[in-house]
């Protein structure tokens, strides 16, 4: 009997979470995030058909920079993109969508002239870049490199999306300085398809006068500290029962 091989994102998320430590404030959150990202890159290299994984984040000055990479070559290829201002990661970030290149050898020479030549010369033949984003809230991008040309299977794409989702959550929680230990279910992802969460995010942005990223971090922090699910908190916000205060939560 044929088994369904349909990708189960909850299983993927659980598997990815099981591989990774927690960002666990109070403590040095910045150092914790670096440790977390390092572990994530190593875990992703092992779990995915990849030879390198990097995370690039938007800095305070609004430019992208490599925050962590699984190895030196991946780090330098990531940095090269931002130096040249071209490459799959740059496009993924600015176009708000994944940029998946199974064979750099077939990319039009005009697309990323400097980057493509350098990557191929370094023995990288496939690059898959996934934006780290929730709607218009953008944090950076996750890059997956392969030394051989070849497509990511649907299962590998699903797993890469799970790594991106979990990375977004970790970054948000570090920003909101949330202890993951207080998270009861752990499955109430930011990317769970509950549109009420995104509406609440827009509302909280206005209520607090903060960025969209900060708004979601604050909502998650509030949910954790109140020991409630993000969805329940979002419903309260949208239905007018809850309004976060600038100095609360």
């Amino acid at each position: 009997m044929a088994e369904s091989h349909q990708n189960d994102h909850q299983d993927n998320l659980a598997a990815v979470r099981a591989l990774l430590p927690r960002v666990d404030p109070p403590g040095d959150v910045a150092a914790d995030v670096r440790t977390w990202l390092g572990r994530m890159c190593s875990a992703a290299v092992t779990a995915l058909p990849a030879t390198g994984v990097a995370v690039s984040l938007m800095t305070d000055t609004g430019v992208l920079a490599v925050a962590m990479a699984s190895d030196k070559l991946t780090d330098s290829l990531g940095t090269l993109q931002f130096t040249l201002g071209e490459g799959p990661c740059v496009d993924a970030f600015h176009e708000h969508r994944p940029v998946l290149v199974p064979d750099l050898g077939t990319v039009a020479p005009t697309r990323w002239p400097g980057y493509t030549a350098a990557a191929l010369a370094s023995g990288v033949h496939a690059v898959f870049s996934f934006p780290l984003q929730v709607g218009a809230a953008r944090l950076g991008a996750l890059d997956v490199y392969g030394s051989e040309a070849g497509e990511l299977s649907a299962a590998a794409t699903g797993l890469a999306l799970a790594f991106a989702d979990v990375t977004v959550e970790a970054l948000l929680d570090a920003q909101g300085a949330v202890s993951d230990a207080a998270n009861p279910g752990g499955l109430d992802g930011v990317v769970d398809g509950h549109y009420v969460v995104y509406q609440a995010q827009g509302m909280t942005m206005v209520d607090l006068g903060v960025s969209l990223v900060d708004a979601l971090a604050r909502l998650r922090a509030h949910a954790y500290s109140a020991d409630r699910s993000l969805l329940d908190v979002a419903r309260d916000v949208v239905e007018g029962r809850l309004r976060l205060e600038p100095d609360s939560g």
Partner: protein
Amino acid sequence: MATVAPARLAEVFVEVADTLVDDFDVIEFLEMITTRTSELVSVPAVGLLLDDGRGRLQFMAASDEETRLLELFQIQHNEGPCLDAFTLGTQVVNADLAHAESRWPTFAPRATASGFRSVHALPLRLRSTVIGALNLFGTDAGSLEPGDVKIVQALADVATIGLLQEKAIRNGEMLTEQLQHALNSRVVIEQAKGALARTHGIGVDAAFELLRTYARNHNRKLVDLARVVVTDPHTLPGLMR
């Protein structure tokens, strides 16, 4: 249900073709498909769901709010005609909700309680890949005629073509890129609805109308405008205070 008047059908396809010419707005396009499908075959509620690449469907567009809730209900309970059309890649036509409890034990009673009596779902497909489904909810038990089904499937196919804007989607990579982009656009709209609702002290549905009207009056794409609402509100003094 009446088979479609050819003149009206021609108008709709001209409208669709007009939309597809330019750099168009994917959300507005999908909302137009659901609304026109509803009008053309006289089925009061139409919704559209897309594969999110994570093994689930996500809501993308609906002809009205009640349909939106029903679509979300199917996703939440992982059960219903849209999921069947998506998973099996086949059409669900003229399913009678009064006799559907064994097939959809949670969905059928919920849809019946909302006043619907029949349901149809058609896959959005690109060759052998199913990328989502179009869902129709009827308030009478009357059936879609074979001619109507063909027209609705044609609209579903047009929705697929519009979504996958690249002229030749040659591989899974391009499919993933386009779908993820469309899905994220929907999230941006919801964020902007929230921000507008709070700024003006109105409900999220009224906020959506406000966003849509402003986009039309200022000749801007809905998603682009929504993105500015939540990332750079100060540049929109007329809309965001």
